[in-house]
């Protein structure tokens, strides 16, 4: 028996099992849309070629002081939603409020037209959960994002997942305290990093150290993400910062996947 023969069949089996698992877990199937980063290095890691529609994605700051960066990452992702469809943002977190209120001109600076944004501010976490689920189920906004501060138990997070799956739109949850969402399909941890400079020494883009800690049917990883001011596009930091990080990320990813 040639040694190469079993490996394709094993790959087939694994692929087959993956497909079954997808169906059993109720995960979005292949061919479903995804919110692409426009970066092959990242999109290749994600099963839908981006953040899957009909799923919950969690974004948390690495540290409380990184919250503005995590919020910026969230807005930059929302800006990538196609067409001029409305987007809804639920804000209830006191921690985020400590860093200020959304500012339209700054949001425009992240490439997101503030006119698309509907802001919903609630007094407590229960109302925020209700508003988030209602917004997802209404299928009015093209995407829903929520900054939820309180504890999110399994039942509440399952409700959100079911709502997102039924409505087939992405639900992005910003967790200012860093507590995890049990049903999240992807979990991102964002930390601020010194920005990129142009040849005049001016800041030409933000940089975030983005860690994909968990990803169903995908591979976790760690990247130094850049966000360009002028083009409003994601990019990967040049080899200067990348070499060690990318390597470290890959090994870490393998370790976790195994």
């Amino acid at each position, binding site marked *: 028996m040639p040694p190469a023969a079993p490996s394709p069949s094993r790959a087939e089996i694994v692929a087959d099992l993956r497909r079954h698992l997808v169906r059993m877990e109720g995960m979005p199937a292949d061919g479903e849309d995804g919110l692409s980063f426009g970066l092959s290095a990242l999109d290749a890691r994600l099963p839908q070629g981006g953040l899957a529609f009909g799923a919950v994605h969690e974004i948390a700051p690495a540290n409380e*002081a*990184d919250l*503005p*960066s995590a*919020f*910026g*990452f969230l*807005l*930059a992702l929302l800006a990538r939603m196609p*067409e001029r*469809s*409305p987007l809804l943002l639920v804000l209830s977190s006191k921690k*985020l409020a400590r*860093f*200020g*209120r*959304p*500012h*339209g*001109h*700054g*949001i*425009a*600076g*992240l*490439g997101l*037209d*503030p*006119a698309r*944004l*509907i*802001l*919903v*501010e*609630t*007094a407590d976490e229960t*109302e925020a959960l*209700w*508003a988030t689920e*209602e*917004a997802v189920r*209404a*299928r*009015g*906004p*093209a995407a829903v994002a929520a900054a939820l501060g309180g504890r999110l138990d399994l039942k509440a997070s399952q409700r959100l997942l079911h709502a997102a799956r039924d409505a087939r739109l992405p639900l992005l949850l910003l967790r200012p305290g860093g507590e995890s969402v049990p049903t999240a399909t992807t979990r991102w941890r964002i*930390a*601020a*990093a*010194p*920005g990129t*400079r142009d040849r005049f020494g*001016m*800041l*030409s883009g*933000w*940089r975030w150290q983005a860690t994909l800690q968990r990803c169903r049917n995908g591979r976790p990883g760690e990247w130094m993400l850049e*966000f360009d*001011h*002028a083009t409003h596009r994601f990019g990967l930091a040049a080899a200067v910062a990348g070499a060690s990080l990318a390597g470290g990320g890959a090994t870490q990813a393998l370790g976790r996947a195994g």
Partner: protein
Amino acid sequence: MHRWLAAEQRKPSGAPVDPRAPFVLTDGSDAPRITALNPAAQASGLAVGETLADARARIGALQVRLAEPAADTKALTRLAQWATRYTPSVALFREESGTDGFFLDATGATHLQGGEDKLLANLARRLHAFGLPARLALAETAGTAWAVSHFARDRAIVPAGTEAETLTRLPVEGLRLLPETTLTLRRLGLKRIGDLIGKPRAPFAARFETELLLRLDRALGIAPEPLALLTPPPVYIATRSLLEPIDSEDAIIAVATRLMQDLVPRLEADGAGTRSLRLSLYRVDGAVQRLNVGCTLPTQSPDHVARLIRLKLERLARHLEAGFGFETLSLAVTVAEPMKPRQHTLATASEEAERAQRCTVLLDALRQRLGPQSVHHLAPVASHWPERSETLTVTPHEATWPPAHSACPRPPLLLPRAEPAEVMALMPDGPPLRLRWRGRLHAVRHAQGPERIAAEWWRTARDAPTRDYYLVEDEAGRRLWLYREGIPGRETAAARWFVHGMFA
């Protein structure tokens, strides 16, 4: 000097008043005077305006309570709100009418009760059930109705056109005049209203305030009498009285849906939709509960309205008291706006329009449950001053946002109030080197700026000093928006620094 008050305190004020014995209300002055009395007190010869000391001297045992005009007005307003179940146009008596009753404009509303006499009978029966003795009169003018109810028989209906005839026999007090005017009229021997009707006007106009002829004209229907209505009458209103009182949420919503269905043909005929609705729930015991429901866009859909009412009820569950149930419900359109005719064909309905429609429905729902202020959009304002450069709007606005400039960056998170920071700079007008903010020290790795922002020319430099904004990045890569207030050496001696926002 407050002996009577002290006596009042010795006797617990909660002791019930015997309605058959003389009972008076007094004002709270040092020499209290009687402001109101019951029939028994009237029978024993007391009158409004007499001092309490005199009254006590005349009749030994007198029940006294302090008058509470504010509470009286409140109670009267509550009662008037209850009376809106008969007609939406209800006006409280004002000063000249005695502040102890209200007018109902029953025009076009009497048939709902089965006629004028049935309306009065129904009103009398219910008021009696509340334990309120009342005198009712129905006439073409408010003045005549008032005079008849106060000085003629109770529950009288004055046929249209017979006002002058009816008023002739009544005393001049029936015109709601000032006491001095009445006194002068009586001294002149003009005791009945009939003495004034048909007389030459010039002598009266010369000798009396305009009040006299105005009131006479109003009572006779020659001059219109403006009434200060409790709530402006809505254009569209539907009311249903129920055989059995209801108290469950589902029943309320079912009735409200039917009320909205009653309104739809009239709205459709006018090409209008409702932007704002008021649901009034009339409780069996006379209390009225009101729900206000607002919509982003005009609507005619009973289902949509029902859903909004359900959300509102859920929100108000704690404040809504059903008691023994609600016997009458009325739904009024308080704001109606023209509505574009709906497309009934499927072919033309685009996906985007449908999405926008779903968004509107969602926003309405969120507003009912979370409160109208909780959902908003951002709109740009033409101002460079960061605090004034945007505003919150209820409806999506049309204005387009100016394109972002990388030369003057703006943070996505702006602090509602700039927070002072301790900053070290090499030169007074130089960029910051180190800053302490919220108890934390940041070493500045990169500072970009300054971007000088001055307030509009019509604001003085003292109120709003010029600001020099810097984008500052610390060693961990966290980016702050920082400004120095005042130009050092020109506007201020020692510049102060503030943190104003966070960059991503």
